[in-house]
């Protein structure tokens, strides 16, 4: 699971109103090289919940140089875009779980795949 994916994921347990962002508890993390596409990253940034992204990166120990708020005119700031690219696309959680901030319910991540299936009583 990449952090870009994580940024979209939310807890959808019945009754939960604040299921986002999910807290990452990782037991295995990998870093792969991914081709850098500045336009792609530049367009992706406005779609992110930035604070959730930073929080997740920090939790994984991959905060690196990322600022707590998006820098102005980031479109032309290649260094910034590269930093974002690394954390957004190259860091992957292979094993661990995602925890709902409200209910504490844990969704397992196994072999890179988060299992977001709910039990009958949760849906």
């Amino acid at each position, binding site marked *: *699971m*990449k952090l*870009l*994916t994580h940024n*979209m*994921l*939310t*807890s*959808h347990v*019945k009754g939960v109103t604040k299921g*986002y962002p999910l807290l990452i508890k990782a037991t295995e993390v990998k870093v*792969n*090289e*991914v*081709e850098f*596409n500045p*336009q*792609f*990253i*530049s*367009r*992706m940034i406005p*779609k992110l*919940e930035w604070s959730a992204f930073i929080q997740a990166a920090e939790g994984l120990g991959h905060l690196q140089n990322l600022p707590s708020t998006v820098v102005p005119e980031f479109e032309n700031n290649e260094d910034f875009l590269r930093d974002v690219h690394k954390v957004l*696309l*190259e860091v992957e959680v292979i094993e661990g779980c995602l925890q709902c901030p409200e209910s504490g319910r844990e*969704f397992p991540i196994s*072999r*890179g*795949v*988060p*299992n*977001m*299936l*709910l039990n009958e009583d949760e*849906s």
Partner: protein
Amino acid sequence: MEDAACQLERDHVHNVYEKIAPFFNDNRYKAWPKVRKFLLEQEPGSIVADVGCGNGKYLHINENVFKLGCDICRPLVESAWNQGHEVQLCDSLRLPYRDGCFDAILSIAVIHHFSTKERRIRAIKEMARTLRMGGRMMIYVWAMEQKRRKFEKQDIFVPWNPNLPCCPNCDQTLSRYRAQGEGLQGDGTDKHRKVKSTSSMLDREESPVSTQPRMQRLWFFSRSLDSVLDFGSPTVSRPSSQELNAKCPPAEERDGNGARSVSWGRGGNFIQQVSSLFSSRSSLEEDIFGSVTDLCAGLSPKKKSNDGSAMTQSVSLVQECSSMPLPDLVSYQKDIQLEESEIAGNQCQESIHPQQKLEDGTGCVETCCESEGSERFMRYYHVFRHGELTELIENNIEELHVMQTCLDHANWCVVAEKVKACINKPF
């Protein structure tokens, strides 16, 4: 109603795909051109979700957009992961994504697996929730009407036989690197897909037409769960898959001539009856489930006897069914007609079970039901009438507006845009 619907889908969608998942790998069919076009039209930096992605057949298209896929079938999802895609396990009625986070959504051959209208609406509403304003979704479902003829009923069961020989040309493996973007040159992966259409025909739904004996392409009619349960039947209860795959109907009688007939005296579980009908030689009639409905309504069960008129009907019905290609294979018929006649002849000979007879309608049913050593997996489909999907969306989902509809090779393709914020939460 909800329980019965869940149970039906569990037995005849989820459990089937779980079992047949291992047979999907490596044999991939061409992406529907319209779906490919839809993906290629998305702006760079878009986020696209494929809800019900299966083994990820669409997730490689357009490296300039971020795609994620989800499916309820673990082996298929893992297969997609192994090909380098971002995927999650989830139920499409409860998507684990925040509101409005996707620029575009695909729903290819998914909605037709929901067994009630209400669930189909809920599934589309859930996708609409995760779509941003102005974003578009593309939905593909099997069409009831097809070029040459149509399905007689809308709710059907389609068998899948894992023991059919695989297409000999299917040697291409789409192995992808884990790192996203690596190894792709634009639509370079499409090069892998420019193979003979026989090999590219394989879909998660069916084996290729060319190697499949025609008798195997049957489906069985059903009543919509919506209409069956309208009778207020208390008899719909948990079916078992063992019964479904049983070769013999649970309660079987033989008349004086040794012909089999099916007794309905088993307490009338709808899905159990479906299974016993599949196993029965004698009862393949046009409106076969009319009797099921009667039973549900508490009327006395009819016994099907093996008389001549029923047989004539069943023979013609089966022959009719077996010559009609299923929606996901239709597009490639033209390409492979020549090959089919060449290959099918040989393949049919090899794979014919001693009991099988092409001409004999009864034989066809027997073949399907009793092929040696093979389990039959019946998948449930609700096939859509002309305009049904559009109507479903326009009448029930305010957030969406239908932009385009077309019949694409026996599938209804609908593109809908998010025009309004979601008002009602689905839960």
